[in-house]
């Protein structure tokens, strides 16, 4: 559905993205995960058409879209700050996203109701934005982004501004919403737990490079490097030396036998 090939980007000759390539299947949710400054938001903006890559190409549904202006891509983007209009009520905020669509007022109203039901805010249509909690604002912003039925949904740290308990609750609510809508989604986050909970696959970036692209289980169980393990909060990473074929001696004395590549299947614990 979406494919990126050898995307490169620099700002003032400082490289920000190096040869990023991956593909996203239709209906899949992919998390762009990495520490602050790793290039994930820049990558999202390139897909959105808000930035141009220095080289490489972005294709959607088989077509190159590098020269297609952002507003003609049919993609929906939701930002961390939500950018709701304070002078409009909830229903009008959601309807705002439908302004460019040729829709009768009745169809527009039906679509707004559908989106309110989707995010569980059917009784909130006339509420003002300032009357909403952080979580409710987040759901209104999602409804507004989904209202025009975007071909690709892009979420840039949508839960980052919320406190931890609310973030966890909304994270649990987002999964069924995205599944019900079935839209292909790019989800930017620096939070590994959030990425693993929401995404079918994770694109793990560091310093502008794609380090690992795999399902959450694979990233957790088969990290491609010590950095990936540590980024996930796994602290027990020991240096080791290959002693003979299939055996690694660790610095603290454990000798670990490997029976398949990158996978320890047997260990004995000989103290030095």
């Amino acid at each position, binding site marked *: 559905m979406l494919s990126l090939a050898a995307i490169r980007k620099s700002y003032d000759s400082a490289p920000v993205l190096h040869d990023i390539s991956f593909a996203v299947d239709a209906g899949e949710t992919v998390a762009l995960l990495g520490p602050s400054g790793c290039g994930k938001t820049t990558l999202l903006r390139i897909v959105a058409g808000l930035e141009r890559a220095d080289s490489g190409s972005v294709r959607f549904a088989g077509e190159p879209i590098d020269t297609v202006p952002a507003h003609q891509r049919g993609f929906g983007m939701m930002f961390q700050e939500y950018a709701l209009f304070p002078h409009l009520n909830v229903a009008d905020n959601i309807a705002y996203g439908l302004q460019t669509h040729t829709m009768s007022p009745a169809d527009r109203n039906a679509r707004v109701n559908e989106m309110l039901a989707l995010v569980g805010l059917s009784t909130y249509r006339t509420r003002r934005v300032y009357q909403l909690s952080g979580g409710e604002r987040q759901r209104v912003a999602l409804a507004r982004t989904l209202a025009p039925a975007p071909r690709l949904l892009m979420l840039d740290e949508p839960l980052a501004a919320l406190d931890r308990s609310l973030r966890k609750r909304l994270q649990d609510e987002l999964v069924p919403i995205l599944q019900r809508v079935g839209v292909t989604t790019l989800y930017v986050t620096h939070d590994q737990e959030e990425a693993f909970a929401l995404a079918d696959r994770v694109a793990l970036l560091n310093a502008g490079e794609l380090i690992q692209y795999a399902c959450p289980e694979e990233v957790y169980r088969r990290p491609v490097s*010590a950095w990936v393990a540590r980024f996930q909060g796994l602290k027990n*990473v*020991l240096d*080791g030396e290959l002693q003979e074929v299939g055996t690694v001696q660790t610095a*603290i004395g*454990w000798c670990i036998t490997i029976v398949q590549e990158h996978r320890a299947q047997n260990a004995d614990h000989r103290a030095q």
Partner: protein
Amino acid sequence: MSVLIYPEAALLLPEGGAGARGMLATINAKQFRGRFYQTELAIGGTKLVFEFDYDPGALGATVNLQLDPQHIVVLPAT
């Protein structure tokens, strides 16, 4: 290369208990979080963090530590 030992890899036995093998480790710190005791074990000068669904402190301040090989991964050099 590096070796990654997952937090669930540790098997503990009381120091010198029947069938005790492996490395001697000292329980350095522990904290009950969620449903696990997150426990830092010191082995010589190295500290490793493991998770247990029981209080490892009940086994004593020093324990015999073995590792379950199913929870160890060798990472390629980068």
